[in-house]
């Protein structure tokens, strides 16, 4: 009996020692960017509209049925809702299906708004050719694509803003299935005004520019010493002078870009010229001042060509400038990430941009504030941001939309990068 009692006591002692060792060893095990209880304490119910989860590829603002509306491409389908809901509740306007034009398959490819008109590229029902359709009131137009382009494979569409009534609609074609020679078949082209009777056709040199993910324009600088330039991001960075865009057919040259560039944006400070900002899948943010010349020789934030900001282990997928710097008020950008295994590198980040005394912006990346941590965005990624400046009653500032690859569309009204920011899901 005594031996048995001793045996039990020994076993119990061993258990306690093991437990104590576990406490010591495991007490430091931590994963995450925020305390669990602290995060729970701050979580708020996220309002949800009816768009649901899924990949959101594009969002534009256009007139649908005579109302200013948001139009999104969710997968291959289009949805729309009025910019202003009927009441004051966020997201009260419900999303509705936007049917494809007659004669087109239901798969929408690209969306763009030029001169206030909504354009969409669909695959035509009769064959595998593309068609370009314009929304006219409650209906879609006939196919507007210039006849010379009908056998070409459209791989991107964008708009170069020209002040509201002088916008240029662009499409990129990457393949001409009816061309005679292989070289001609593979030629990539930029078409300016594909809906016009006489579109301008530029050629990418060398063969590249498969798609058109982002188009931005930098101005010619305060003294007009530089060259206003159109920058096109998509399988490389391409550029051409703005003045040549609608001119004679020309060759589009490739610019040097940081390795792994995924998106570009333009930032202008109150005392600086326009700066091109590029984000990369390596987690870098680079700056360049294109007024130094239309051809960029180097991307830098300082003389030794270091990135302006970095976040290791993070793949930046997109960038949008929410506001430029004004006086002492720093500018604000948002950096989306591509979802990956590193759970600390998902979602998106804020970046403050402050012009320094020599005019060179300084960037600082930080975790978003407000109710961001309560949203599912942080477990996913953001493929694109859309900054909407449409004036909406009761909203001070811009509306920021975050387009996610799997969790639908998120919206924050009056986003300013502070603790008051509130995201809802559309």
């Amino acid at each position, binding site marked *: 009996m005594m031996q048995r009692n001793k045996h039990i006591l020994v076993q119990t002692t061993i258990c306690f020692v093991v437990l104590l060792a576990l*406490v010591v060893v495991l*007490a430091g095990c931590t994963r*995450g960017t925020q305390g669990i209880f602290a*995060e729970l304490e701050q979580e708020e119910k996220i309002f949800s509209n009816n768009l649901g989860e899924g990949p959101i590829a594009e969002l534009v603002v256009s007139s649908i049925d005579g109302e200013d509306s948001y139009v999104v491409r969710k997968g291959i389908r289009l949805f729309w809702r009025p910019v202003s809901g009927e009441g004051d509740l966020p997201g009260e306007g419900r999303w509705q299906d936007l049917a494809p034009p007659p004669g087109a398959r239901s798969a929408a490819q690209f969306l763009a708004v030029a001169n206030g008109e909504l354009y969409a590229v669909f695959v035509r029902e009769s064959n595998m050719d593309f068609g370009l359709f314009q929304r006219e009131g409650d209906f879609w137009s006939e196919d507007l694509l210039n006849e010379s382009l009908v056998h070409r494979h459209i791989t991107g569409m964008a708009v170069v803003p020209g002040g509201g009534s002088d916008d240029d609609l662009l499409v990129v074609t990457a393949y001409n299935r009816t061309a005679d020679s292989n070289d001609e078949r593979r030629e990539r082209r930029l078409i300016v005004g594909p809906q016009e009777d006489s579109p301008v056709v530029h050629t990418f040199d060398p063969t590249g520019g498969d798609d058109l993910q982002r188009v931005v324009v930098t101005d010619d600088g305060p003294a007009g010493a530089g060259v206003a330039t159109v920058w096109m991001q998509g399988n490389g960075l391409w550029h051409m002078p703005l003045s040549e865009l609608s001119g004679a057919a020309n060759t589009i040259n490739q610019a040097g870009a940081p390795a792994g560039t995924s998106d570009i944006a333009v930032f202008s400070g109150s005392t600086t010229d326009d700066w091109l900002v590029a984000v990369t899948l390596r987690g870098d943010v680079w700056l360049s001042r294109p007024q130094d010349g239309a051809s960029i020789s180097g991307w830098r934030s300082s003389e030794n060509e270091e990135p302006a900001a970095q976040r290791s282990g993070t793949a930046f997928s997109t960038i949008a400038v929410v506001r430029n710097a004004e006086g002492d008020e720093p500018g604000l950008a948002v950096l989306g990430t591509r979802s990956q295994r590193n759970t600390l590198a998902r979602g998106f980040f804020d970046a403050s941009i402050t012009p320094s005394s020599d005019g060179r912006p300084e960037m600082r990346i930080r975790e978003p504030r407000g109710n961001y941590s*309560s949203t599912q965005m942080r477990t996913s990624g953001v493929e694109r941001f859309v900054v909407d400046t449409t004036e909406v009653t009761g909203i001070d500032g811009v509306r920021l939309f975050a387009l996610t690859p799997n969790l639908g569309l998120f919206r924050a009204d009056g986003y300013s990068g502070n603790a008051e920011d509130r995201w809802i899901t559309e």
Partner: protein
Amino acid sequence: MLSVHHGSDTIGHVIFLNTATRSNGFTGLRRVGCAVLLLAVSSVAAVAQPLEDEFVPTYGIGDQMISLNLGLFIPLFFSGGDGIQGTNLSLGGTGHLAWSGFLTDQLAIGGEFGGMFAFSPNGNPLYMVPLAARLTYFLRRFPFEFPLTLAAGISFNSFNESFKVDPIVIPGVGAYWNLNTEWAFGIDLRYWWVPQLYLGQSEISTDDTRFGNFLATTASVLYRF
């Protein structure tokens, strides 16, 4: 050893467990496993002769007990940040499996393994899985007994993409009715105190340190062997 008392006298009705198998660890584990199985499968259907009023069981070293608890998890509040703050958690569920060995008739020592879940306002689940040592003191008035328990150990906590191992202390009180010398049924009320300390060793700010306060109320089945 399990003795059955008659009034204040031991009547000498002593049940010896098979001590020959105790020295074999594997067999011991198998016995515990069998006991768990017994609890799960036959607790409700346990058929045993009701104790006669005159029998009062006592326990000592060598006697063991295992219990299974299931019930509600009630989030109370967080402290340590800006004062007392709500947890934002829904009512949840909890359960645990506990084993103890008697040191004396009143005192038992052992361990427990359990878990809980509750949901945030956006439906994200919080999971806490405590692994703890426990000390139990029994107040008895046959056929009822009122165990006072103190458990302490570690809790594996997970929420969204975050994970942390925290210390946990669980004081509790129960009320049980003994069906016979082996089976007892009752309820437990336990307070979970989880200090979640961030000491600046990770990316997380020390400002995120919180003390979690929760209540678990469970129904329990207890088997002694």
